């Protein structure tokens, strides 16, 4: 874990080697490095500064024991501290066992409130709650329509009124819910800027009318330095209960989460990553901590691999591998799976320790394209039985795929080596879908 960061710190920490303990002087370079990493991850300037101070305090005087390097020691201190700051107080949603439970999403424009409301509704519906989604965003064009379409997909009712009046909407919704025996209300409110006095007054009024069990502040994981300002004002206005971090399926490092946690001290309750309605997860502080530190995100890599993997295809492949019948057609399918996962460079970036090592080397995604083209130029018979690939056939394939005969030869040679390898592994029953599944990444 964290080879990349450890490596950087190791360089900065050369001075410490041979010294018995960490001192302010001998760790200052590595602290500067950490600061840069945090700022690049969008951790707020002041928050980063405080964090460094905390880490320094913890690190100072720590004895450097023989078995681990100073770099590893500091990395561990930083990681542990980040995990504590991000999520030492995990808590569940406050759902009333009886009577009506009210939940409300608030936040800036475009943070993903409506999508989150849909996801939350789906999740709670699975817990047998009778849910009513309330369309309290009366401003953004088609916001109500968006909520209705989401709700329709998951079979949930939406409450809205004709007039563009959010206060009235929530009042009527409460009445309606009581009459119709709904037990859970989710209020989707309009996105608003924290500096918009009128709109902030509205959200305060809505809170007053509804007095929700939970108010969730929905924030985009890509948010920059300004996250502290908006979170602070929202917290002062509605005193929200938890944070929802959205769009984590991108590659943002998510430092804003640390900033917000530090400024308002509220727990991060959900991570919303993806546009599919079931991509809502509980928050894992350790995952986010490694993300902020710019570490390889092995878990995401595995998840990406799973996305690209088709269960049935995998079983078929397993069968073929066992019988050592892996042919060019299967190879082509594998290439397509890999391509679905993203560019090679982005995948390699997720592998801990790989990022820095290959930084200066160009990863050529076109290599895969070439291989694909070559296989596509083969007849089905050739794909199944590579042995028949004589000189003439190879020449034809090179012409058809716009490559050289050398390219074709090289590719076929690599493939036959791979086949041999697979023969060895599958002979021992080593590579199978179940063994892939059982890989433990912790």
């Amino acid at each position, binding site marked *: 874990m964290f080879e990349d960061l450890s490596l950087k710190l190791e360089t900065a920490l050369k001075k410490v080697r041979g010294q018995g303990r960490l001192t302010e002087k001998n760790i200052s370079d590595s602290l500067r490095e950490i600061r*840069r990493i945090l*700022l*690049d*991850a*969008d951790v*707020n*300037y*002041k928050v980063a500064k405080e964090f460094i101070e905390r880490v320094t305090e913890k690190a100072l005087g720590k004895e450097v024991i023989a078995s681990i390097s100073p770099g590893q020691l500091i990395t561990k201190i930083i990681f542990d501290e980040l995990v504590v700051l991000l999520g030492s107080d995990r808590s569940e949603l406050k759902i009333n066992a009886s009577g009506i439970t009210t939940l409300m999403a608030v936040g*800036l*424009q*475009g*943070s*993903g409130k*409506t999508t989150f409301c849909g996801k939350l509704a789906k999740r709670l519906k699975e817990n047998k709650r009778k849910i009513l989604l309330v369309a309290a965003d009366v*401003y*953004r*064009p*088609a*916001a109500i*329509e*968006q*909520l*209705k*379409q*989401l709700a329709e*997909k998951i079979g949930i009712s939406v409450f809205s009124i004709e007039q563009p009046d959010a206060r009235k909407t929530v009042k009527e919704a409460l009445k309606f819910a009581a009459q119709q025996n709904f037990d859970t209300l989710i209020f989707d409110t309009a996105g608003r*800027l*924290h*500096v918009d006095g009128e709109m902030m007054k509205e959200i305060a009024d809505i809170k007053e009318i509804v007095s929700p069990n939970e108010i969730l502040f929905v924030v*985009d994981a*890509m*948010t*920059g*330095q*300004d*996250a502290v*300002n*908006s979170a602070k004002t929202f917290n002062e206005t509605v005193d929200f209960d938890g944070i929802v971090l959205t*769009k984590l*399926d*991108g*590659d*943002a*490092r998510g*430092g*804003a989460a640390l900033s917000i946690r530090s400024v308002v001290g509220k727990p991060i309750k959900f991570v919303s990553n993806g*546009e599919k309605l079931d991509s809502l997860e509980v928050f894992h502080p350790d995952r986010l901590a490694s993300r902020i530190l710019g570490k390889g995100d092995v878990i995401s890599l595995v998840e990406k691999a799973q996305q690209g993997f088709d269960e049935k295809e995998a079983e078929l492949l397993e069968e073929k591998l066992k019988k050592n019948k892996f042919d060019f057609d299967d190879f082509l399918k594998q290439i397509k799976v890999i*391509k*679905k*996962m*993203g*560019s090679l460079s*982005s995948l390699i970036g997720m592998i801990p320790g790989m990022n820095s090592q290959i930084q200066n080397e160009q990863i050529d995604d076109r290599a895969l394209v070439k291989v694909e083209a070559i296989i596509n130029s083969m007849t089905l018979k050739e794909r199944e039985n590579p042995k028949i690939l004589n000189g003439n056939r190879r020449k034809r394939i090179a012409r058809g795929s716009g490559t050289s005969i050398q390219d074709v030869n090289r590719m076929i040679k690599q493939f036959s080596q791979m086949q041999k390898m697979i023969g060895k592994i599958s002979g021992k029953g080593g590579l199978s879908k179940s063994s892939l599944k059982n890989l433990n990444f912790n």
Partner: protein
Amino acid sequence: MKLFDNIDLEKLKKGLTKTRTKLFNSVTEVFTGKIKIDDETLEKLEEILISADIGYELVEKIVENVRVKLKSEKDRSNISIINTIKDELTQIFVTEKSNEEKIDKKPYVILIVGVNGVGKTTTIGKLAYNFKRSGAKVIVGAADTFRAAASEQLNIWAERASADLIHKQSGADPSSVAFDTIKKAIDEKYDVAMIDTAGRLHSKTNLMSELDKIKRAINKVLPGAPHDTYLILDATVGQNALIQAKEFIKVTDITGLVITKLDGTAKGGSVFQICNAQKIPIKYIGVGERIDDLQKFDSTSFVEAIFGNEKIK
């Protein structure tokens, strides 16, 4: 064609007031009465710039340049310090030859792209309004067939701007929407056609290649189009904006940037790094939710508005 003549500097300044006041106050707070440039002052300068999302690497460079320049210059009053920083920042922006929008093709096709929630549809609505105001015949295509109610949202904006709309049912092929829009634009002699696309995270390969497909569909019906591809960036987004720009450029030849949500306290400083690395001009800035809250970007007034020259005495 003279476009965007409705823009006045005052409104731009007003839109950036919070930004300016904050930065300006911080800068004067640092420099007034301080002649000596010590490390503490430079650190404070660093804080101001980093807090504006300008990014560690570039800030380090700026601070270093300031340090070197001020060492050699005699006048170390606050004005010269602010001017030095301002110069550093202004130099980063790409200077465009002409400030006039050149609508030299008919129809002039603009493709709008960006990640989720940055304000693409809103920006199209505002652009359509501005083009309409200048007398152009405008059509918009709702190629976001993915997000719930996206085409309904665009429809409302199109109505507000009195522009025409092409849309299909949810889940339809976005390229076919783009194709039909451009086809209609050619057949019925529209001046401007704009294509709204679904928000897509730049890390999703399949969605990014869909964008390429849309582009090819447009090009097929009108060779040379799209004539402009604008990447919409959210001012509240931090360093990820750089990666967004980089990845979108890879698939779509971005010709211009639009920075939205500058009416909040976020400063959108990540554009400095983007412009520094990618040399792409910023075309417009969004400063509110009203249909006329779109301003033509002007580097001088942008930086002027940030530092508020008029307040220096």
